[in-house]
Each structure stands twice: as structure tokens, then as C-alpha cells.
């Protein structure tokens, strides 16, 4: 589903990703772990299409097509979803209007009929219940004044409504207490299916107790220095990242 080959990414002339190779097949859950500044978030943002990063070498194929040639909205319509580490507050746009616009934009792109207000409400209310979220959130401006936990749940809600084929979760666990973490993880697990893939970007192993990955990759200073199964995450929990550090220069850019 996703094939990353020798990906090099720079921002303002400073190289952050220094040759990433990663293959994610449908049905799999991958976790990308690493210390702060290792480039995890950069990878997530590049996959979603952020244009402040410059891809200097390599390629990304998604379902066989050149992902880097697609605009962010085209990637979304093709089923790629990024749950943001820092969801953006947009005053003046209600959460429900935003989510309905997004859903209909994607449906339209796929040649499906748009959902009307009533169908949308039925759909979204089901998802809200599953995520133990307050319905009143729908009428609030998108992420405005939301607590850290509410923002992360809202990301999960969007994912549940949009039902992406490839979901990338960027530090979705940060800012969540243990109860919220379980609920969010449950929302993610509900998406797991043989047709879908999930990439969980995280600093801590904690989330992986609830979203159990098939593969774990450790990113240090812009390179994947080790891959393994979930036991690798447990090992990292025990030993930290220090023992994996490559001889390359220390990372200075926060990812």
C-alpha cells in the first residue's frame, strides 16, 4: 500500500530525513518510534503533503501511484489520513460543518453521492457515542478552546467518520490521560481491517499497549536504525533510545 524508498527531506537547507525505506502493506499496523527531533513528525507531515518540507531524493508510492505528485487534498481523497500532533484551531467554522464538508469532498471525489445534513448527523452521532464524546462539540468552532485531550479525540472522530485506508497517527497519545487513551485506541482499533493500514508515530510505548503493532521501527536522526516486532517497543521502554544512537551528528531539529 505504502512504499517509501530512500526518502531524503530537508527544511531550509537542513536535512531531517536521511534516507528512509519503509513498506506498509494493507492490514498491517506499523509503529514509528524515536526520540524527540528524530524526524518522526516530519515523516508524518511529508506523507500528508506539507509543502514546507523539501523532498530532495527518493520516492513514495501509495497504491502504486506517486504520492509526492498529489496535493494534500488528493491524498486525503485517495484515503490517506493524518491525525495531527497539534490539531489547528479554526474559529468561525463549526466542527460539524467542517467534518461534513470534508466527508462530502471525499465522497464527491470518489463518485459517491454527498450525504445530507440528516444522514451526516446520524453517522456522526454514532461515532461520537463510540468515542464517548459530547454531541455539543459538533456546534463548537473547530478545536477552538478544546483541551489537549479533546483535540486528540476530535482527530480520532474525524478518522472514524472519514474511514481512511491509510491512517497516520502523529503522537496521538500525547496529552491524553489513561481513560482517554483507551477510548482513542479503541477508536483506532475499530478501523483495523485487512484493507486498511495504520502507522502510529509515538515517542512512548504506552499507546502500543492498546494499539498493538505488527512492526516497530526506530527512527534516530533521520534514519530507521532498527526494525522489529512489538518486542522492540518493550525493549525501548526498558532501555530508552540511547543504545541505538548512530554515530552520525546529533539531531538538532525537532520533529
Amino acid at each position: 500500500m505504502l512504499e517509501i524508498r530512500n526518502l531524503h527531506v530537508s527544511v531550509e537547507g537542513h536535512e531531517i530525513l536521511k534516507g528512509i525505506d519503509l513498506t506498509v502493506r494493507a492490514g498491517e499496523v506499523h509503529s514509528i518510534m524515536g526520540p524527540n527531533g528524530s524526524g518522526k513528525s516530519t515523516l508524518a507531515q511529508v506523507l500528508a503533503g506539507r509543502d514546507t518540507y523539501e523532498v530532495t531524493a527518493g520516492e513514495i508510492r501509495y497504491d502504486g501511484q506517486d504520492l509526492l505528485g498529489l496535493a494534500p487534498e488528493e491524498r486525503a481523497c485517495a484515503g490517506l489520513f493524518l491525525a495531527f500532533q497539534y490539531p489547528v484551531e479554526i474559529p468561525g467554522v463549526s466542527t460539524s460543518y467542517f467534518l461534513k464538508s470534508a466527508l462530502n469532498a471525499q465522497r464527491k471525489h470518489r463518485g459517491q453521492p454527498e450525504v445530507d445534513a440528516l444522514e451526516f448527523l446520524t453517522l456522526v452521532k454514532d461515532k461520537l457515542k463510540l468515542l464517548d464524546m459530547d454531541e455539543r462539540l459538533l456546534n463548537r468552532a473547530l478545536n477552538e478552546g478544546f483541551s489537549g485531550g479533546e483535540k486528540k479525540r476530535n482527530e480520532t472522530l474525524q478518522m472514524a467518520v472519514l474511514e481512511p485506508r491509510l491512517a497516520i497517527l502523529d503522537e496521538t497519545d500525547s496529552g491524553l490521560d489513561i481513560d482517554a487513551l483507551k477510548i482513542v485506541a479503541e477508536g483506532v482499533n475499530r478501523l483495523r481491517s485487512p484493507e486498511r493500514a495504520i502507522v502510529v508515530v509515538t515517542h512512548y510505548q504506552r499507546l502500543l499497549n492498546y494499539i498493538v503493532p505488527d512492526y516497530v521501527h526506530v527512527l534516530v536522526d533521520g534514519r530507521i536504525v532498527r526494525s522489529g516486532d512489538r518486542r522492540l517497543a518493550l525493549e525501548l521502554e526498558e532501555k530508552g533510545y540511547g543504545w541505538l544512537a548512530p554515530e552520525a551528528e546529533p539531531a538538532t531539529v525537532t520533529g
Partner: protein
Amino acid sequence: MRVGAENSSPFVAACAALERDVARGPAWLTPVRNAAMARFMERGLPTVLDEDWRYTNLAPLARTAFRRAEADTNDVAPAQLAPFLLEEAAAVLVFVNGRYAPRLSRRTPTPGVQVASLATLLRETPDVLEPQLARHADHHAQALVALNTALFADGAYVAIAPQSVIMQPIHLLYVKQPGAKPAASHPRSLVVAGAHSQATIVESYVGLGTGVSLTNAVTEIVADESAVVDHYKVQRELETAYHLGTLQIHQQRATQVASHCLSFGGALVRHDIRTVLAGQGGDCTLNGLFNVHADQHVDNALRVEHAAPHCNSREFFRGILDGRGRGAFTGRIVVRPAAQRTDAKQTNMNLLLSDEAQIDTKPQLEILANDVKCTHGATIGQLDADALFYLQTRGIAAPAARSLLTYAFAAESLAQIKIESLRRQLHAVLVARLPGGDAFRELA
């Protein structure tokens, strides 16, 4: 300083002719009008050399001889006004080219409210006007106030009796229908809110037909002790219109006045919005939203004077500029030595949608007391790149995402409008004007 030659400009000469047509009014008003006219003839129109007019050039106005409009109240059909009426209104006074149109107005008697045409009152019972009319707006310092004071032929008088609480808005609808020759009117409004009263006033300035017009409006709002006044000024004239408007608010002790200035029409528009917090514990909110496109120009010049202790003022103005549109915002806050514990806050946010649009924004703080809190902030920018990317990653295409963010920027101002029909009308005006705005029709 002005040069004598300016006084012979076509504009000034036409004003002198207009003056001959205007009924001078009662004995107490005549000297005020004469002094105002003399002051205007002495000063002429403001120029960009005046600090307060740096960003707005009235030269095209000075070259134009504005006469009285040919069309009168019989030339407007009730159906033409439908898009501008507010269903909640307790009363609507309609003025066509500055003249009261009883046929188009609706004045259901409401206890505690007097609503009348100024021309009628000046003929019949002028003494009720004497304590307040032309006592607050400064015709000595402001040339356009002087011109209006000298030349106003009609306008509205709204008086709320003490203790009266009027929930439904009172609507003053000033309709401009210029005709073939440039036509001017100088409407005057006076709102007097008695002690402990509460009321909502809407002033709309709208245009019909085609042609060049000038509206030089002055509104005085006087809020007696503990009065609560919500005021809306809606400017939706033709894009060939000149609109110069002065709002002068005078607030006594413990009053709460909120004035919203919503500006969409006009070729050249200037709003002078001034308030004096004259009594302790007063609270003043000035909100504004303007949108210019093509070659439109809107200048908001605010002046909040804290003259008494323990008063709050809030200014919150937003501008959306597209095409070659130009805008200006000047926020002057004056804190008098007596005005301790003043809390004043000013925010001006502007969105530039094109490379050729331009905004000048300037706070001016003049603080003469020592125990005060004054903050100001201004932003000029394009749409937030993070927000744009966020919307795109959800599948919303870039142009639609840009429209949505632009709409959202304006929607925050519209959300402050408490009158539902007005909010809906302006929402529709906005979606019709914003690029891609059509997509948000359902979002009223």
C-alpha cells in the same frame, strides 16, 4: 492649513447652494447652523495633509458638485426595500435621499419609545430636541460634522423613556437613489436613551438604482445613567457611492453601549466613530467588519475617550480586502487624568486576499492617567498556512479551504450580531461577495 481657493471648489459651491434650500429651524438652532457653515467654509473638506485623513483622499469629492437628489420618496416602491427590512423591528423609519418617507415607514406605537422624523419635530415641537441635538458631535473640530450640522434637512429622532426596556430593534433605513446627477444628502440621527432604559437601534444606509451619491451622515447617541444601547450601522450603498459618517456616542455613569459597524458598499467610505465615557463604570464595545473589493476604499477612524474612572472599552475591527481594495483603521484611545482604572483594549485584524489590496492600521494611545490598562494589537495577513493545510488534509481542495477560512474570519464578526434577520442578511451579502463564498450559503 487650507487655502482660500478650496472654498471655490465645485463641491463647496454646491454646498452653499444647498444651504439656501434648507429650513433653518427654530431660533436656538439657527446660530448653530450658521456657525457650522462658517466653520466648514473656513476649513473646507479635509485633505490628506490632515493627520486624521492621511489615508483617505477626498479630492475626487471636492471636484464634484453634489446637488439635491431628483428622486423623492414617491420614486421608491415598498417592494424595493424588502431586502433591507428586519422582521424583528418594532418600528422602521425610511428616508429616501435624506427625506422622511411616511408611506414606506412603519411606526407602531410602542410604550416608552418616541420615534419621529427630525424635520417634522423641528417644525412642530423643536424644543424636545434642544437639549441634545448638535450638542455632542463636534462641528468645530470636524469639518464633515460642521457640514452636516449646517445642511441636514431631515433624519431620525429616537427617544427611549427612562426605565423602558425595548427588546425589538428600531430601524432607521436611509435609502439612496441618486439618479443622473451626483446627489448628496446629509442625514442626521439623534438617539436619546433615558436612565436605566434598554434599546437596540439599527441604522442602515442602502442604495437603489445607479449613479453617484454622497451621504454625509451624523448620528448622536446619548446614553443616560445605566442605559444599555445596542447600535448597528450597516453600510450597503452602491459601489459608486461616497459615504462619510460620524457616530458620536456620549455615555453617562454605568452605561453599556455596543456599536457594530458593518461596511460592504461604497466607492469611498469613511466611518468616524467616537465615544466619550463621561461617567464612572461605563462600558463601550465597538465592533466592526468591512469588506472591500475592486477599487473600494473604507476608512475606520475610531476615537474612544475615557473621561471618567472605572470604564471599559473594547474595540474589535476586522477587514477583508480583495482586488485593489484599500482600507484604513485608526484607533485613538484618550485616557484623561481623571480616568483611573481604565481598561481599554483594541484589536484590528485584516485579511489581504490579493497582492494589490492594501491596509493601513494605526493605534494611537494618549494616556494621561497612571493607573490604566491599555492594550492594542493589529494583524495584517494572508490566510493561516497551518489552517489551510489542515483543511486540505481532510480532503477540502485548496480554493474551497481558502474560501472557508475567509468566511470563518468574517463569521466571527457576524456572530456578534444579536438580531437574527440582520445576521442572516449580512451573511448573504458576505457569501455573495467573498470568492467561493457561495458554498457557505447554508451556514447563516
